[in-house]
């Protein structure tokens, strides 16, 4: 089977710091891949390169076996990769529908330049409502700004937004950080529904219990290198942790 997304020999340098050093990664459709590693291991840099925030210095990204360049967030989006960044996901001053369609508003008429088109606000609200219902995300007040919503609701909206537009890969950076038990549960269920719908999901997480529960495979980074890959099971927990912190320490 061809991986939906493959990264080969990813290398990225920030000044004197080698953030990524020849990392290989593959994800398959209908799979949840956990990306693990201590702080500064290179997880965020890797997903930022995949999602077009940074450019790789060396290495390549392939989608469905074909080499692609994700030179900008827009290019990555166009390739079917959606990313939910920790803390950066939402516009607190806008309602859920405006958040959903930020940067890709439904608007017309088409002969006008994009910025001058008139918003089709009703279409956007309706589509947003339908999607939130399908993914079983309960929102008390669909017209309130998301700044007024709880952490779990906000994260659910961010994840649902990624799911709505990702045709291939959804990347989630710490989706359950700063959430309560019940709210984490909802987000985890949402991730499992994404897998059922055939998305490839990459999750960065420090929460081992969550990783073991939802991930089919875990890749571990340390100091910019991939140091191992295994399937996260309760029995492997100790092995995973020592891979993350490093055998030598």
């Amino acid at each position, binding site marked *: 089977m061809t991986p939906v997304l493959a990264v080969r020999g990813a290398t990225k340098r920030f000044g004197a710091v080698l953030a990524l050093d020849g990392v290989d990664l593959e994800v398959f459709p209908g799979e949840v891949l956990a990306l693990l590693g201590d702080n500064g291991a290179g997880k965020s840099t890797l997903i930022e390169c995949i999602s077009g925030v940074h450019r790789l210095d060396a290495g390549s990204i392939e989608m469905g076996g074909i080499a692609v360049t994700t030179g900008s967030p827009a290019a990555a989006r166009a390739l079917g990769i959606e990313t939910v960044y920790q803390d950066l996901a939402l516009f607190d001053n806008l309602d859920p529908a405006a958040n959903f369609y*930020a940067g890709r508003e439904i608007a017309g008429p088409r002969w006008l330049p*994009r910025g001058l088109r008139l918003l089709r606000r009703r279409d956007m609200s309706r589509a947003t409502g339908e999607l939130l219902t399908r993914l079983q995300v309960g929102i008390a007040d669909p017209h309130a700004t998301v700044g007024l919503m709880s952490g779990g609701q906000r994260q659910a909206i961010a994840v649902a937004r990624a799911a709505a537009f990702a045709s291939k890969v959804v990347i989630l950076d710490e989706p359950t950080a700063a959430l309560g038990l019940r709210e984490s549960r909802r987000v985890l269920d949402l991730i499992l529904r994404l897998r059922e719908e055939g998305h490839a999901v990459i999750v960065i997480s420090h929460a081992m219990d969550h990783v073991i529960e939802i991930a089919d495979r875990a890749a571990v980074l340390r100091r910019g290198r991939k140091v191992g890959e295994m399937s996260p099971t309760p029995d492997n927990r100790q092995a995973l942790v020592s891979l993350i912190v490093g055998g030598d320490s």
Partner: protein
Amino acid sequence: MIAESGALRRLGSDPLRLALLAIRLGPVLILLLLVVIMSMLSPAFLTMLNLGNVLAQSAVIAVLAIGQLLVILTRGIDLSVGSTLALASVTGALVYSAAPSGPVVVLAMLATGMAVGAINGMGYVLGRLPHPFIITLATLSAARGLALWLSGGQPQQGMPEIVQAMGGGSAGWLPYSAFLVAAVALAVVLLTTRMVWGRWIYAVGGNPEGARRAAIPVDRVVISVYVLSGLAAGIAAIVTSGRLNAGSPTFGDLAELDSIAAVVIGGASFLGGRGGVGNALVGALMIGIIRNGMNLLDVDAFLQPIVIGVVIVMAVESDVVRGRLESRFRIARAARA
């Protein structure tokens, strides 16, 4: 205002919600209160003639405040609008003496405003400056200096008829400048509530890095709001120059502070992302009525800036309280969920 009627509809019995709504409607309530108090204190206040005066006196602040609003929505500030107004008026007067054509003078004034705005926006974005305060402070100084230099420091008499009409003409008690304000307000309401570009302005103000990652053209959006603020200063220059039938390098002195004050006391957030044209208009009218009322009541003119200052502090404090109430609201909701 649309958002507010929506908020009214969804109003529950929740006290936190009520407090939030009160803060959101606060500026409108204060404006109404001002009107009631003034009409009780002075019989001259609620006459058509005086209301026309209030509108005419508020017109310049209102137009500048609408431009300033767009800038503040993106977390920016435009300190240059008063100086830009002066430069545009002097340019208009000089063009008029060379080519006495109404449309040419109007275009020259608008173009001058937009040019200063373009310098602000491009200087800020392309110069990767940490904050627009610096570049607009620079143009505050430079545009005023250029206006002084071009005019030799002297007011230049003479404006075309169309400019004079915009500044001083009226239909009955309704000044033409009020129609101009209404037209500008309508155009910007269309931009901010209906157009994709307006949605992007709010997105940039709410979360600039998020907007970048959502593939919104953040740099172009930011530059555009400064150009539009400059354009507003050019329109305000037409009103001011028309009223006094001259272009002068001293016009618009401290007008940038009035415009910022109007936006903030009208209820838009100084922190960006929240507020609309209604807020700028309410704020401009509040300042206009406070000034007009104190004149009618023969209050010492030196006291007026003090009153405005107190109102500004109250407005910003209510924005802070709003933020705190919202986070309590969020916690209360999470607990209920």
